[in-house]
Structure formats: structure tokens, C-alpha cells
């Protein structure tokens, strides 16, 4: 899922401090799971903003809602009447949701309340780690199910580099060496021949490098 992290509250306050009516919009999707922007976080932010404005001597109205998802129009349309009543919306959805809100309610300033970080998984409660870089051309079959683009700091195709030490990446003892993991996994799977095979230069054009991307499913397309 998409992993996000709440923005520092002073950053959010800076954007909304001169407004009179603010709506905090959470999202029940990914950001709820990673505890960054669900209803709970929206309520906490709402409370914090209300207290901020109070102590600043202002009478600002701050309310919270949470949408099922902010990346699908029908759910955004459900909030249309509510959004009308406010000067701006602080959206706690991922970057995609914030943008979709902004597109849908294009006369209304929409501010992001979280920093969207990566595609990842829940390691344990309160901890999420990156797994996928959305390169558009998945090679997980040849690397034992571990992605070198996302998990190698140098996104090497023929790793590890000479900085791999004790299973850790040279950039930090807290970062596993992606290629060390791949090697161990391929060994477990009896697929070390895959490790020896040289990997050709990657076609990055399906990745961010190729420009903003689009997927169309013909059979479903209107």
C-alpha cells in the first residue's frame, strides 16, 4: 500500500493560519492503515488546529470527515456539499488523493496534510518499509521475490556493490543490503544460477523517467 507520514503540524498551520473555515479530510484507504491520515488522525489534527486557533485568539471553524477513498471520483462527489462550506481542505490522503480532490474541487485550495513516502508493507505495528518503486517492469521472478530497484540504494541490477557489509547497506546499519537478501533467498530457492546471470541495462522508460504514466484497460475502458 501507499505509506505516508503526517506533515509537521507547523507546516500545516503555516498554510491555513489565515483561513476562517477549514475541513480536514481523511481517507479510509492506505493512510488509515499506516496511521497517517485516517479518521483518527483527522480528528487529532482537527483538535490540534482548533486549539491553535483558540490560543491565537481566532474563531476559526475546523471540522473533520473521512472519505472511503480520495482516488475515485464517486467518493469525492459524496463530499461535494460539505466541501462547499469551507475555505480550504487539508487532505490527509496520499498525493494522488490530494490532487484528485484539487482537480474535482478546482476552485478550492487543497493542502496536503501528509508526506507521501513510498509503496510498502507493515513490518509491525508502527513500522512500514519500502518494497516497490513502481518501475513498470517487474523483475521479481528473477530475484527471488526481492526487488533490487526498491531495496538496493543504488538500484543495481548486478549487485551487491563493494560496500555491502554484514548484510547491511553502506548507507546505514539499519538498512539491509538488498542484494545480500536476494542472494540468500536465491540460495534458499536453489536458484543461484539466476544470480550468476548478468542483467541487461534496465529500460527505465516504463518508470518515472519515461514521464507521467497511464494505464488503460481496454476491455473496461468507456
Amino acid at each position, binding site marked *: 500500500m501507499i505509506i505516508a507520514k503526517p506533515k*509537521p*503540524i*507547523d507546516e500545516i*498551520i503555516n498554510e491555513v493560519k489565515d483561513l476562517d473555515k477549514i475541513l480536514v479530510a481523511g481517507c479510509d484507504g492506505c493512510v488509515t492503515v499506516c496511521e497517517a491520515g485516517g479518521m*483518527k488522525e483527522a*480528528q*487529532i489534527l482537527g*483538535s*490540534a*488546529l*482548533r*486549539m*491553535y486557533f*483558540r*490560543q*491565537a*485568539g481566532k*474563531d476559526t471553524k475546523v471540522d473533520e470527515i473521512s472519505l472511503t477513498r480520495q482516488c475515485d471520483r464517486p467518493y469525492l462527489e459524496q463530499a461535494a456539499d460539505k466541501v462547499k462550506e469551507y475555505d480550504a481542505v487539508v487532505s490527509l490522503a496520499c498525493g494522488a488523493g490530494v490532487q484528485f480532490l484539487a482537480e474535482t474541487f478546482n476552485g478550492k485550495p487543497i493542502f496536503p496534510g501528509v508526506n507521501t513516502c513510498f509503496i510498502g508493507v507493515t513490518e509491525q505495528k508502527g513500522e512500514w518499509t519500502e518494497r516497490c518503486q513502481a518501475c513498470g517492469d517487474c523483475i521479481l521472478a528473477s530475484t527471488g521475490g526481492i526487488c533490487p530497484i526498491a531495496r538496493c540504494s543504488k538500484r543495481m541490477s548486478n549487485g551487491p556493490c563493494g560496500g555491502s557489509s554484514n548484510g547491511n547497506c553502506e548507507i546505514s546499519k539499519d538498512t539491509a543490503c538488498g542484494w545480500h537478501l536476494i542472494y540468500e533467498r536465491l540460495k534458499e530457492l536453489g536458484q543461484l544460477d539466476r544470480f550468476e546471470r548478468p542483467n541487461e541495462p534496465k529500460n527505465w522508460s516504463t518508470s518515472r523517467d519515461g514521464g507521467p504514466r497511464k494505464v488503460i484497460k481496454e476491455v473496461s475502458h468507456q
Partner: protein
Amino acid sequence: MSYPTNVKIVKLPCSGRVDILHLMKAMEEGADGVFVAGCLEGDCHYQAGNLRAKKRVAYVKEILDKIGVGGERVAMYNLSAGQGPRFAEIAREMTEKIRELGPSPIRIAKRQAGERPTTEEAA
């Protein structure tokens, strides 16, 4: 055992039941301060409830500092259920601290706006 009358007690089965939002709401309603009294570390009946409470209190402190209300107004204390006198001591300590800080800016603002705070003020 006596403790200051301005202290309102909310009973919970475990300090781990305290949610961030409970602390926020209390302050938002105009409480001058909130303290969480949990069991001694290592003694939690539910294993780690008091550790979770500690983290949540720290989280709320940070927010309160950033929004101009002041993180010193919330605190975590640890004591055992049998430590009646210690509880009274903590209540007095907290009350003293809050008195020094003065009323919470939220309470002041609410008063000025003519709203009745939902928590009683000490005489």
C-alpha cells in the same frame, strides 16, 4: 488521603486505554492540565499498556508545544495501586505546576468568548 479538589479523576482499566484523542479533547475542552497515572514500569497488568500511554503522552506534549498550548500541561506518572499517599503527592505536584503555568490559553479564550468550560476551575 486527600488531594486537591480541582483534580477530576477518570478511571480506566489500564493507562493503555488512554487514547491520544482523549488527551487532546480534554485540553480542547479547556482543562488546564491532564496527567496520566499508570502502573510502575514493568508492573503493567496488561503487559505494556503503561508504555503505550507514555508514548501517547509524549506525542501529545509535542503537539501542544507546537500549537502554543504548552506540553508541560500533560504528564505521565507511574505508581502502584497501593501507593495512595504517592497519588496525593502527584496530584499536589501537578496542581502546583499548573497553577504556576496559569490557566490554559484555551480556557482563557473560551472564557473570553463567553463559553462555559466543562471542567470546574479550582477556587
